[in-house]
């Protein structure tokens, strides 16, 4: 079992013919992900070939959806076109949209997220590495080689920091149900809470790893949710204890504004909710492993 993506994922790639899009689509197809087609306006009718297969390219998601019955779409288009791509996927009836693009203006995301909510469509991202259900589907850029199937659910705002944790888990022989990067933008799609709920409901997930960072109050909200609804053990790390207020640490959302968004506040809330909060990220795999016994 797993959450959000698996063997039943029928993936469409928006921006499949671009440099990044074609490179990572090849990686996904080689991993065994069921890529059913791609979209690039003006290139409808072409084929995309990789891993000994070929998939059709369409002008619009609507046409692609009609021809392939895709249920998931991965967006690999530049920031100034990415919001259109999200709306396009939503209007075409895609159920899960994963947007990797970074640098999308935040007011655009406010509008887009509000619209998706009215339609009940799930978004992961933007500015995220996507999802990986080891052995079933890789939807995004999380390296397939570092993960193995297992019973730990991983959710994170980060990219490489997440890879670290997955890699460490795998090296200790601990596999993952699904690994999800939700992105570090101020306004994004599914948040910690929604992912935690999915892991809680997933019978194959026995433990959860949650990696947060400074900025916003998603971790505090998650802590409140965990205290009330999550029965599975959660291990966490919060990046950015040394970040000074008022400076954006790379991610658009990673900024301490006034007294809000500090690592201390998040760590305290999580600890109070019964979460084990690691001091260093390389402690996480060890904590999880101890719990296995």
């Amino acid at each position, binding site marked *: 079992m797993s959450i959000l993506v698996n063997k039943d994922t029928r993936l469409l790639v928006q921006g499949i013919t671009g440099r990044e899009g074609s490179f*990572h689509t090849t*990686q996904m197809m080689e991993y065994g992900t069921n890529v059913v087609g791609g979209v690039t306006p003006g290139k409808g009718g072409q084929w995309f070939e990789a891993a000994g297969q070929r998939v059709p390219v369409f002008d619009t998601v609507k046409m692609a959806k009609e021809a392939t019955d895709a249920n998931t779409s991965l967006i690999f288009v530049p*920031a*100034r076109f990415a919001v259109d791509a999200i709306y396009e996927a939503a209007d075409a009836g895609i159920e899960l949209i994963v947007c990797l693009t970074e*640098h*999308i*203006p*935040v*007011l655009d995301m*406010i*509008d887009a*997220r*509000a*619209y998706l909510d009215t339609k009940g469509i799930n978004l992961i991202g933007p500015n995220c590495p996507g999802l990986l259900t080891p052995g079933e589907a890789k939807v995004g*850029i*999380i*390296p397939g*080689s*570092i993960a193995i199937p297992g019973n730990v659910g991983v959710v*994170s*705002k*980060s*990219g*490489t*920091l*997440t*890879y*670290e944790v997955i*890699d460490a888990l795998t090296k200790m022989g601990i596999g993952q149900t699904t690994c999800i990067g939700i992105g*570090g933008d*101020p*306004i994004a799609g599914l948040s910690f809470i929604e992912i935690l709920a999915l892991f809680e409901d997933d019978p194959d997930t026995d433990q959860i790893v949650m*990696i947060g*960072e*400074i900025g*916003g*109050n*998603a971790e505090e*909200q998650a802590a409140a949710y965990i205290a009330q609804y999550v029965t599975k053990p959660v291990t966490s*790390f919060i*990046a*950015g*204890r*040394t*970040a*000074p207020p008022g*400076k*954006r*640490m*790379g*991610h*658009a959302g*990673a900024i301490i504004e*006034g*007294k809000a968004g500090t*690592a201390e506040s998040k760590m305290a809330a999580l600890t109070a909710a019964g979460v084990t909060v690691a*001091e*260093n*990220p*390389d402690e996480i795999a060890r904590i999880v492993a101890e719990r296995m016994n």
Partner: protein
Amino acid sequence: MNLHEYQAKRLFAEHGVPIPQGDVATTPAEAREIARDLGGRVVVKAQVPIGGRGKAGGIKLANTPDEAEERAAEILGMDIKGFTVRKVLIDQQAPGGIDQEIYLAVLIDRAARKSMIMGSAEGGMDIEEVNEKTPEKIFKVHVEPAVGVRGYQSTYLASAMNLPRELWRDFHKIVAGLYECFKADDASLTEINPLVITGEGKLMALDGKMTIDDNSLYRHPRLGEMRDLDEETDAEKEARLSGINFIQLDGNIGCMVNGAGLAMATMDVVKNYGDEYGCGPANFLDIGGGAKAEQVATALRLILSDSNVEAVLINIFGGITRGDIVAEGILEALNQIQPDVPMVVRLAGTNAAEGRAILAEANMETAVTLSDAAQKAVAAARGGASA
């Protein structure tokens, strides 16, 4: 990107928000001339993108053009929280004096995922202080994305803040204008503090603050031009132009990492192991994906431009890019730069062992875990300090 007060107010004014007449001077003589043209009494205000200017002596009244020149001479060149004052705004004083100071802002409420308008009759002071001591005096309305600001929302704020009814219509125009400006210019904050009721019974924005979403600048070329290059260090500018996320901090261990979350985590671990020895991160630096030789070289130059740096920790997770390729890029960059501080390289992920072998062969200090790397970097920095 934070705008200066005068830039913010001019943008507000484009959307119908009343602001005092005024202009910007870079010399005392210019200040005198502007004050003379404005006539009457003026206020001379340091233009630095940071709060607390008043307490720092950066805002002074002047009753004559001569006084304006003197005050400008005092303020220009001042250092306010690390920013040198290079411009002063000469504004007419509020006509008839100030009867009441109001706070009004539009900002993003991340938790609600909406823009929010915030108002308080307790203007003029630090709003965070008001929020802490008397949160019931701050009133908030959210803007529905599909709906925009509506008259009833400013009516609610005006009624809750107990503003004089004869000003409600003007107040609505200011609320609508401030939101319009926020939306049209992709701001993450537009703030008026104080919005005053003048002695003549009119509303006027005496101060203005505005933060623009950097990600939106591609569609606002004229806002991009407002960036005050004087406020940026050379290193910050080079980083911005080469697409590297770089923030100068005050520690002694330079950090070069791929990925923002991992970069923060690396800083945290350095501090964890170094704090007791007075060691800490000298910077935040995310070189982005790939870690090619050129990016690594630029990043190293940025880090080493800070003379406080006594050791450098390079922490790269090889994901799609293999560790051996990354190692070769690092060696090539080091060959270009020839740094004179000790370096510790930690490689993890795909082909990390092969990468570490390549580095070890070149006599680089390598590490397997992040904790190990941080401890080695701290030791190297301490060794460097005692050398």
